[in-house]
């Protein structure tokens, strides 16, 4: 927004402006919290440099300077242009009563001087600059007009024509905001330009100046600057302070309601937590006797399960050897003349020695038994003088041959 003596203008495009004129709650809120630049011809300004970059010190200095810095009557504000190299550059502005009243009429409160964004953007870029910004008139409808447009039925022909004519005249008029800016090492200044009424000095300066491009202007208005946050914070604090001063009784009520709500919440939550805790403690104590009995049973169950598992594991680790002996006996017959001289059975392997007509056939037969594996000759079969072969076979066996489990025994 740009507020000048000619009225309220918008820096955004015409279409965007139309979107903002729907007059719903969000649009109104957006309008009232918008930044409002005061046109250069509506305020006095002065740039001052302070030899400190400490923001608290700058604040103290500004607070002390503010009441007497302006030579004219009005509302004086201070804005920090730059903080660097142990130097603070402050822009003092004095807005006229009329312009502040106009802003208040539109309920605009984030007031900024038009030259401020230029100074912040062009700081340390010495030269003479000319800026021309196209403006779009902002149709701020009165409550009556707004009501009439919304109802439509209540709009008389004459009123409708008047509103349309006003909008059309304002839309068709060419509005621009033109500024001449002089940026020097320690001096920053700006001058509003009215091309219809140029003096010879201004004409000469205009000829020397370099014109700021549209992109530069767009960038300087939209580029993020931490000092913008500072401005916003200051505006919010000022607005709240004003509200508190104006509506002191309402503020007291709000504060009381807020405080009471917080206290009620704290007390309520405390009571609920205390009750819940004591209720649970009581419930646990009541069912403790029953639970102890159940827990004892549960522990006994765990113990007996563990015991039975241990017994089963041990029984499985000591399977009977009868099955092994039975398999060996089945291998003996008259044809093969099998005779064992040694049978050595240890927990997982067996070694057998003896004589047989054909040791290889014995090895083959043993290999076919389920549960036997790694069946091999320990030493090569030896041919005997009397006929037949001596063998020394080693094999491993597993639990698949046979074993008892605890359940099998007790069934």
């Amino acid at each position, binding site marked *: 927004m740009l507020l000048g003596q000619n009225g309220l203008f918008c820096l955004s495009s015409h279409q965007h402006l139309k979107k903002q004129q729907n007059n719903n709650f969000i649009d109104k809120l957006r309008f009232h919290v918008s930044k409002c630049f005061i046109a250069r011809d509506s305020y006095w300004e002065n740039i001052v440099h302070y030899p400190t970059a400490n923001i608290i010190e700058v604040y103290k200095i500004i607070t002390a300077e503010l009441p007497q810095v302006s030579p004219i009557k009005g509302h004086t504000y201070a804005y920090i242009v730059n903080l660097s190299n142990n130097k603070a550059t402050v822009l003092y502005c004095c807005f006229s009563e009329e312009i502040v009243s106009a802003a208040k009429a539109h309920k605009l409160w984030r007031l900024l001087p038009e030259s401020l964004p230029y100074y912040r953007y062009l700081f340390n870029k010495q030269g003479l600059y000319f800026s021309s910004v196209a403006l779009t008139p902002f149709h701020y409808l009165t409550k009556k007009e707004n009501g009439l447009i919304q109802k439509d039925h209540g709009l008389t022909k004459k009123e409708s024509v008047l509103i349309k004519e006003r909008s059309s005249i304002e839309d068709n008029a060419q509005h621009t905001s033109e500024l001449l800016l002089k940026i020097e090492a320690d001096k920053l200044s700006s001058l509003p330009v009215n091309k219809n009424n140029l003096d010879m000095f201004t004409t000469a300066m205009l000829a020397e100046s370099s014109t700021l491009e549209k992109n530069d202007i767009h960038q300087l208005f939209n580029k993020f600057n931490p000092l913008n946050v500072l401005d916003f914070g200051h505006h919010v604090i000022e607005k709240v302070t004003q509200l508190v001063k104006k509506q002191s009784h309402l503020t007291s009520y709000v504060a009381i309601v807020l405080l009471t709500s917080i206290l009620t919440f704290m007390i309520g939550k405390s009571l609920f937590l*205390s009750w*819940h805790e004591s209720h649970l403690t009581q419930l646990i104590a009541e069912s403790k006797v029953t639970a102890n009995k159940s827990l004892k049973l549960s522990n006994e169950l765990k113990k007996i399960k563990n015991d039975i598992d241990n017994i089963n594991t*041990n029984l499985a680790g000591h399977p009977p050897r009868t099955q092994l002996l039975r398999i060996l006996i089945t291998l003996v017959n008259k044809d093969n003349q099998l*005779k064992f*001289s040694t049978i*050595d*059975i240890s*927990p997982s392997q067996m070694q057998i020695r003896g004589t047989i007509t054909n040791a290889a056939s014995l090895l083959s037969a043993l290999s076919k038994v389920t549960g036997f594996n790694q069946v091999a000759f320990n030493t090569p079969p030896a041919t005997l003088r009397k006929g037949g072969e001596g063998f020394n076979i080693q094999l491993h066996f597993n639990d698949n041959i046979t074993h008892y489990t*605890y359940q099998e025994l007790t069934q």
Partner: protein
Amino acid sequence: MTRQQITLLLLTLLLAIKFIYLPWDEWATTTQNNIAQLSFFYEKQQKVIDNEQLISDKLGLLQQQYKAFSDKLPSIKPGQKANALWFSLVDSLKTKDIKVYNQKVEFEQYITDDIGYVAGSLFISGKALEVMPAILALETKAPYVFLDQLKLIKSSGSRSENMVTQLYLGYWFSKSIEQAP
């Protein structure tokens, strides 16, 4: 509202936060944690109470199985060692035709509080026709008796002793638990 009043208000606010709100918040957080723990414990307690009958039934079943196994085991009195049981088992093998010698108890191991086994080694010699039935007789007592290792050797000695057997023999037992007075 003067600057002094604002300062006092801010100071009061900060003091209230420091000495009222923060301690209260800490207390509330601790109580909430405590409630969460109590709730968890209570839920667990209720679960155990609800499942009591189920637990009791299962316990009864397992106790029966356990008793069925332990009842078949020879028992010793508290404070006694199981060596005597093992030696009596070995003595039961002796006949006039077979010799039992070098018998010694290696160790006894408790698998549960009152059930365990005692293990030892021994040699048996004699005719194969006499020794083998003795070994098979031991095997018939399985799983209360088990042969962990078994070595059968054809002896080259006299005809009356043509087989020597080395056994590593284990014997399960139970210990009767002393009743509380």
